[in-house]
């Protein structure tokens, strides 16, 4: 793990046509913890998350980070014509991980998170034939494959069953203990007691709640 992971966003602005979603938004996370970003539908949470992850460019402002990032988008960005195993192989290669023939997925860490999130294997079944909950689990597992230092989760548990939801929070607390930075976006945060700090997007700005 990187010794001092951080993520800093300064003066972020983003508009879709005339619709100004983010305006001079700042976020500075330098310590391990669980952080929440909340806001109403369409307030810019997902846009902010995509900018933090690096898959969207802001109109203004900059983001700097140190440490390995893992991004779990709101919609499952998984290959629908591939199986769970093939998706894991593809992303493991992307992260530069070597898989062996041992265990379920050839890597002890992957096996651990797959078990934690109760992800079924469905050998030989392509993802497009799986339930929304299973795709959501795979979506999250793909973000955590490489044991990242900064974990960006955009509504990661909306389709989870209750037990997986509880396991998710248990795992998030485990990561916090290890000093990881976890940013969770949600329009509803039930488990506010587990959050170290929370920001609300209000008129395009991130306001500490």
């Amino acid at each position, binding site marked *: 793990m990187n010794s001092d992971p951080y993520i800093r966003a300064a003066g972020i602005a983003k508009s879709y046509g005339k619709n100004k979603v983010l305006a001079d938004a700042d976020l500075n996370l330098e310590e391990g913890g669980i952080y929440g970003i909340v806001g109403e539908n369409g307030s810019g949470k997902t846009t902010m998350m995509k900018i933090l992850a690096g898959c969207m460019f802001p109109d203004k402002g900059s983001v700097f980070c140190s440490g390995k990032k893992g991004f779990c*988008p709101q919609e499952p960005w998984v290959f629908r014509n*591939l199986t769970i195993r093939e998706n894991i192989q593809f992303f493991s290669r992307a992260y530069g991980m070597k898989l062996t023939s041992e265990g379920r997925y050839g890597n002890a860490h992957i096996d651990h998170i797959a078990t934690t999130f109760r992800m079924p294997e469905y050998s030989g079944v392509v993802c497009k034939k799986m339930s929304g909950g299973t795709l959501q689990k795979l979506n999250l597992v793909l973000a955590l494959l490489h044991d990242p230092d900064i974990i960006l989760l955009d509504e990661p548990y909306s389709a989870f069953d209750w037990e997986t939801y509880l396991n998710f929070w248990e795992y998030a607390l485990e990561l916090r203990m290890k000093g990881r930075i976890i940013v969770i976006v949600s329009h509803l945060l039930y488990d506010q007691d587990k959050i170290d700090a929370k920001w609300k997007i209000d008129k395009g700005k991130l306001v500490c709640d």
Partner: protein
Amino acid sequence: MRLNFLYTAIRLTLIDLVRNRFLLFLLFFVPGFFYLIAWLTNPDSPTAFRLASVEEEPVISVSQQDLGLVFIGLAASGLIASFLALNLMQRNTNENKRLILAGFKTQELIAAKFIITVCLISLVAIFIGLMGIILMDPGHFPGMTLGYILCGFVYGSYGMLVGSVLKRELEGILFIVLLANIDVGWLQNPIYYADAQNQLVIEYLPAFFPSQVAIASAFTDYSISMATLGSLAYGLLFMLLSFLLFWINMRISKHTG
């Protein structure tokens, strides 16, 4: 370029592509159907036309049925290649971006798509060529099949370009069918071309060079080298443009500081 990354991208992108059953259906159904229609409808009487890609512009006389079969082979090759390529570029945009965020290089994904496209197009064209010789006896089978491969390459590259520009499948299909239908299915037919009012327009369309390669090889002994080079140049231009657009669409911010 990391070879193990490229290998994984080729393997899994290919698996993802061939699990699309509609594409496999297209692959086997379209050539057979097209050939059957051409064979049933074209008369066996001879027709004469001027071969435009050859400097001397010789007038040659061939069976209308054989000419129709060569043309329908070109149309099948172009259409299938463009659909395959469109599918390859339009699907999984977000997933590809996620792979790049995770560590793949854009050029590795581009190289995988290029290799898959060229290999599939060649296989499809050879398959179409082999189906063709059941119904006719071309003068030079390898040259005629090369024409099919080049038509697939040019239209496959066009499909990639359309797929890089348009996000939705319906619009992409419309653009492909529109051009392929007018170009390879109509204007490049030498019977139409010989009497066309503005031949220059037809010569600048994508299927001109590949169709000249196929026709010259099927019915004459004339050289096809210039038409082959023209086809490659056309296809490469489309392909480079499509990869440039793909690269722009896949840009990510590394955020390291």
